[in-house]
């Protein structure tokens, strides 16, 4: 009993108590790049809010909003108490992938409905910026729209943050047959199945 009481009396240490500089860095980077995300210090902490529809450096394609609507991805980014050694999870809230799309490699969605943004755990060493993950999530939202329009039948391997291979689709409005079952494959170089 004594041991039990001693254990239950322990106060958990949140990751930001051990890594206050990392929290400060994240807050600075994320609020600067994505001012519509709000920090909530519940559990291991979350960021929730909407990403810009086109946060990339290259110009926004002319008809992007015809494909995605005017709003960017609404999401919740959840930290783990092992952060920064473990990457945060990003859960899309709107659009929200359908259960049939979960665990689907071509949709880049994991079994818990979070986005699968890193194929290898080892890619995340703890030093990378969470902003890079959020950028990938913004790219996922656009590829998701193209998947839903049946313009592509699988998402790109590395995302479109700095890759314009899918931009030509977004430069023109969707044609009527792209709302049906037509599946045109991207023609950009280097495309590979993931």
């Amino acid at each position: 009993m004594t041991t039990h009481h001693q254990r239950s009396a322990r106060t958990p240490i949140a990751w930001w108590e051990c890594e206050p500089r990392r929290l400060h860095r994240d807050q600075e980077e994320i609020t600067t790049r994505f001012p519509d995300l709000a920090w909530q210090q519940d559990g291991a902490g979350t960021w929730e809010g909407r990403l810009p529809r086109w946060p990339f450096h290259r110009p926004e394609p002319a008809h992007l909003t015809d494909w995605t609507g005017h709003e960017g991805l609404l999401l919740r980014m959840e930290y783990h108490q092992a952060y920064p050694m473990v990457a945060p999870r990003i859960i899309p809230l709107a659009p929200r992938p359908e259960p049939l799309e979960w665990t689907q490699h071509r949709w880049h969605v994991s079994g818990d409905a979070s986005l699968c943004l890193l194929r290898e755990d080892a890619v995340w060493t703890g030093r990378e910026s969470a902003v890079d993950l959020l950028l990938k999530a913004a790219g996922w939202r656009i590829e998701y729209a193209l998947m839903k329009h049946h313009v592509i039948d699988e998402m790109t391997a590395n995302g479109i943050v700095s890759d314009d291979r899918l931009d030509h689709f977004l430069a023109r409005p969707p044609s009527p047959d792209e709302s049906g079952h037509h599946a045109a494959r991207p023609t950009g170089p280097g495309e590979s199945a993931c």
Partner: protein
Amino acid sequence: MGIDDAFNDYQKTVNEDLDKTKLARERRDLFKTALLSEPDVLETFGSGSLSRSTQLRPIHDVDIVIVYDGDAHPGWGVSGPSAEEALEHIRTQVNRLLSQSNGTRDNVVRHTLLRNHAVKCFLDDPDDPEAFTVDVMAALRQADGTLLIPEQLNTRWVPANPEYLIDQVAERQRGWPHFRPLVRVLKQWRHTVHVEGRIKSLVMEVLALHCMPDFGNRATALKTFFTAAADRVHEGVWDPAGLCGEIQPDLDREALAAAFTEAADLADQACAAAAAGDTGGALRLWQKIFGDDFPAPAAPGKTAAAITAPALITPRPIKDAPQG
């Protein structure tokens, strides 16, 4: 240039010139011999980094301990004014024996100042920021072999065991010939770390005792040290003899841990580059840790880098990493 040769070259920029080290030892020994001739002095010995051969260049000061006969000073060793009295007693003896104007043994001391634990004796102009000084500390030997030393500010005597650290460092050096040189390298490295306040050199020395392996080459040993120290420093750095408590309570542990982590990361990449046959890349990474004094070839052009750099040191930006 190979990795070992580069470390040898860099070591020369950290080590004090042999003649200056010899001069510092001669000055220290002059004080020891002069004070040992006093009837109330039982023994004298050097303490501080010079006594452990872990001194960094330039040598501005040396430390010596004068162990007095407690019977000759029955009031010493207990809290109260005796702490300051002991320091004043040293000052009187030093002036009589070694003052520039009328020393009976030599004429080297130009000025003395009472500090918390010791009397600082200036052999150069006190206004010279690089003035050479000898710090003389009074002590009483205890039955268990440890010392009691005066603490003027708190009017008390506190336990200490500087000989323990001297012995520990000597033992590590006997087991691995790179230990002392690398302690000097780490003391130099600490000057490049961005922390609130400063990092005491003794902090680095004690961390080296705890975290430096006693085998292998310098590169792998440093990689291990930086990795282990990044974790260890969070616990604070304490007197290894267990008497004096935390060495630097105001140490900016977090920033130092971050610096250790960064150095560990670079050292890991340097070792990987060397293992892959990319000696130039490895040397440039060590230079990134230790600064421009560490010799390394200039970075090759982009084309050459794309051919020779191992994947480990050219990580792909995460925003372009494979997903799904």
